[in-house]
């Protein structure tokens, strides 16, 4: 007899993890499945880490509604989940009159979306606020509620808080089909077997279209993966004057190539936006790097290629859903619905930018939809919204570092010298509620290997620690799950038992 759940959430990206986290507040038996080896490995793993103020979403669209609602949620949510969030504000800059006109459109849109504090500033004022800005800049739109988030930390913390509150997380579990009974979803088939339930939430990100098609829904809805490439600069070599996000004036290709601070202290440049053929194609291209570099130089001409320490590509789940409000003429909206025709499914789709920002609001919308469908959703008396963050050595003062090391000597061994990550932090993640059991899982959680040597120093040491803690051989340690082995065999791997002194003589 297969297990029976109240709700199964498909996909442990930022949306699925937050849906599970907010649902864990209620007396529900919840399963969160993820096809990858870790949470947050799809669109949540590679984006601009921007928390958008909400001035560029089309008024009345789901994007606008959830974005604005979520901006008010992040301060409390980041506190509860023990993650960083910097409401540093952002700028959209213009370099000519035409772009200035576009900024006015954005300002108007923002005001209709009730974005607080928007302000037009002139080029001179922009130069004063960020002296590194391109001298061509003639004006900017300032949005004080824009900010920096950390999509890795947010996804991991949300999923962890969900697990702490009784959600069952199954990794390496890929959705294959729905189990239907009389037009109602009663379970799902996966590569790990069948799971029965009363409700399914489709939070499958790039694959959300394929999932809903399996339920016979929205056959014309299509997600086209759109790749964005990014460059990271060494924090020791280059910084903006103060943390912020600098966007160019947007075009039909999206928000454009930004230069921004990150919560990890680096400057990020990107993304471009190119449709690709595969939902797994995160390849970096020479042309792409060139494109984002010249884009970045239009904002900050002093960026220097010598300071590049990392590049990566990420995918966005660009959909083609019309806005649910028929009065809004927009055809790239989020789908947030309980569809007609299929019962037992909360359907989400097309969650691209501002999806990271909007995710907590999307989770609340899911709860409202369930309530609207007659779910009583009784609160658990013992729900704990607080996830206590684990120590981050490099963020501590000298005194705190000394105290922590005195308490637990493992914090006295630095394993990643560029980012100053300790053995203690690695051990804590390996033994966390969602155990980090691959190199990349530890990298995403501790930020080791992300600095200027890109893991060259730490990797042999991390492999050793993982093998020891998981009681496996170093050759079984992977970068990111099955098929991504780091090591193949031992050296001198030959039978030596017969080489006794007697035999040789």
């Amino acid at each position, binding site marked *: 007899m297969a297990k029976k759940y109240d709700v199964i959430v498909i996909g442990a990206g930022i949306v699925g993890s937050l849906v599970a986290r907010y649902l864990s507040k209620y007396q529900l038996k919840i399963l969160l499945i993820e096809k990858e080896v870790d949470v947050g490995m799809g669109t949540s793993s590679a984006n601009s880490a921007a928390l958008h103020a909400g001035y560029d979403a089309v008024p009345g669209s789901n994007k606008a509604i959830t974005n604005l609602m979520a901006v008010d949620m992040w301060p409390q949510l980041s506190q509860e989940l023990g993650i960083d969030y910097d409401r540093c504000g952002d700028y959209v800059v213009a370099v000519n009159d035409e772009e200035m006109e576009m900024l006015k459109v954005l300002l108007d849109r923002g005001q209709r979306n009730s974005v607080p504090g928007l302000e037009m500033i002139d080029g001179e004022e922009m130069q004063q606020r960020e002296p590194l800005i391109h001298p061509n800049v003639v004006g900017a739109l300032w949005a004080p509620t824009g900010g920096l988030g950390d999509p890795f930390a947010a996804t991991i913390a949300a999923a962890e808080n969900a697990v702490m509150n009784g959600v069952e997380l199954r990794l390496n579990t890929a959705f294959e089909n729905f189990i239907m009974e009389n037009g109602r979803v009663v379970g799902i088939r996966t590569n790990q077997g069948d799971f029965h339930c009363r409700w399914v939430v489709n939070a499958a990100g790039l694959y959300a279209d394929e999932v809903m098609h399996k339920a016979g829904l929205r056959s014309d809805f299509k997600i086209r993966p759109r790749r964005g490439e990014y460059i*990271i600069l060494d924090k*020791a070599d280059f910084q903006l004057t103060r943390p912020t996000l600098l966007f160019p004036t947007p075009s039909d290709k999206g928000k454009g190539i930004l230069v921004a601070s990150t919560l990890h202290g680096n400057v990020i440049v990107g993304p471009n936006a190119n449709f690709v053929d595969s939902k*797994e194609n*995160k*390849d*970096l*291209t*020479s042309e792409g*790097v060139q494109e984002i570099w010249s884009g970045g130089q239009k904002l900050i001409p002093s960026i220097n290629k010598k300071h*590049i*320490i*990392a*590049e*990566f590509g990420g995918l966005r789940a660009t959909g083609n859903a019309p806005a649910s409000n028929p009065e809004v003429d927009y055809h790239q909206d989020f789908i947030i619905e309980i569809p007609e025709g299929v019962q037992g499914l909360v359907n989400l789709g097309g969650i691209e930018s501002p999806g990271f920002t909007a995710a907590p609001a999307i989770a609340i919308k899911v709860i409202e939809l369930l309530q609207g469908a007659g779910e009583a959703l009784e609160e658990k008396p013992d729900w704990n919204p607080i996830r206590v963050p684990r120590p981050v050595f490099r963020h501590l003062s*000298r005194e705190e*570092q*000394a105290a922590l*090391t*005195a308490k637990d*000597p*493992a914090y*006295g*061994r*630095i394993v990643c*010298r*560029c980012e*100053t990550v300790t*053995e203690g932090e690695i051990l804590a993640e390996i033994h966390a509620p969602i155990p980090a059991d691959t190199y990349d899982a530890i990298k995403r959680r501790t930020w080791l290997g992300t600095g*200027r*040597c*890109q*893991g*060259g*120093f730490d*990797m*042999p040491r991390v*492999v*050793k620690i993982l093998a020891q803690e998981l009681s496996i051989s*170093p*050759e079984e340690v*992977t*970068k*990111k*799950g*099955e*098929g*991504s*082995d*780091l*090591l*193949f*065999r*031992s*050296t*001198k*791997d030959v039978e030596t038992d017969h080489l006794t002194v007697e035999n040789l003589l």
Partner: protein
Amino acid sequence: MKQTYDVIIIGSGPGGLAAAIAAKENGAEDVLIIERDIELGGILVQCIHNGFGLELFDKDMPGPAYAQHFIDQVRGLGIHTLMDTMVLDITPNRKIYAINKDQGYIELNARTIVLAMGCRERTRAQILLPGARPAGVYTAGTAQRFVNVEGHMPGEKFVILGSGDIGMIMARRLTIEGARVERVLEIMPYLTGLTRNYVQCLLDYGITLQKQRTVNRIIGRNRVEAIEAVSVDEKWNPIPGSKEIIPCDTLLLSVGLIPENELSKKAGVLLDPITNGPFVDDRFMTNVPGIFAAGNVVHVYDLVDWVTEAGYVAGKGAAQYAQSEKIKIGPQIALEAGENIRYVVPHTLDKDHLAEDLVRLQMRAIAPIEERVLVTVEDQNGDVIAKKGEAYARPGEILSLVIKSTSYEAVQKTTSLRVNVRRR
């Protein structure tokens, strides 16, 4: 453990070991080496191939044996060591903050510091290598650690990008361990490592080196499955029709080394953008009084013997500085990179110092000259102060030249010193 030392050396590779020995032998009483690994010797520990010691000892030693020679002296001289300890911060007034498992947080004062952190490898990201990001892309040095220290093979079928020394040495090492090295690709039209390594590691093992050819794309979702190679012109533009998919499971990168100076920067040490190491005088003192630097942290050497020699010079200077009355800094004169010279180390020379010690200059050529060359040091009028003939000049091999104390008078008269390398 003491709170204050005469000389604290950060790093126990060949530069650090030599600096510690020289410091002790030149009168420093309390000398401490701080090492982040669990053994002394730095990168030499994983360099189990031979080729070390030819210049200094006229002996051909493997790396660990070369290191042991100095480790024995360090032990014999009563030099203190702090192992498995990472330095977190250095201040300009020579306070050192370090940490380890046993003692926890450590605060030390040094009368002088010798920076000997060595260098790190250039990564995939720094050369903007396109394609997927699977497992199986390693720097040659990381692979070397896996094989020689940890005892694990990071792959079976390799392509190596870059003809740097570690890459070529790993090509041989992996072949001996039963792996296959499909190709070594070099984007430059010339070898970037030592010719002897090309002969002993590639030619002798039948491994193909292709110049002006590079990796165009990495293929493979979870683990490397292949790389796409492409030929390039002088400006590194891909040549149409030259692409080839080479199936492999591992890509090793041997694409350059960068001096490791994050701590130096914290201490206020100024770096030369060409060497990526500190500006140093002929005692290997940086712009921060009392902070010296030795070895690959200053610029990337080709032979360990010269790193050791630099360590001796820095260690002696540090010891003298620690006993302040023993050092007198004279007027400085800049050593300029002239014709076909990319850089000269040291950057400046103490005119007075030349009376007591010779000065060894280390240079790298900009372009290769495959015929007999003359390396010269010239004064402001173009008169030669020191010279040395070489069979050739190659960017991959350091040029070395000594200004002897006999040139003392000539150096006093000039306002500039320029180093050149020309065809004879």
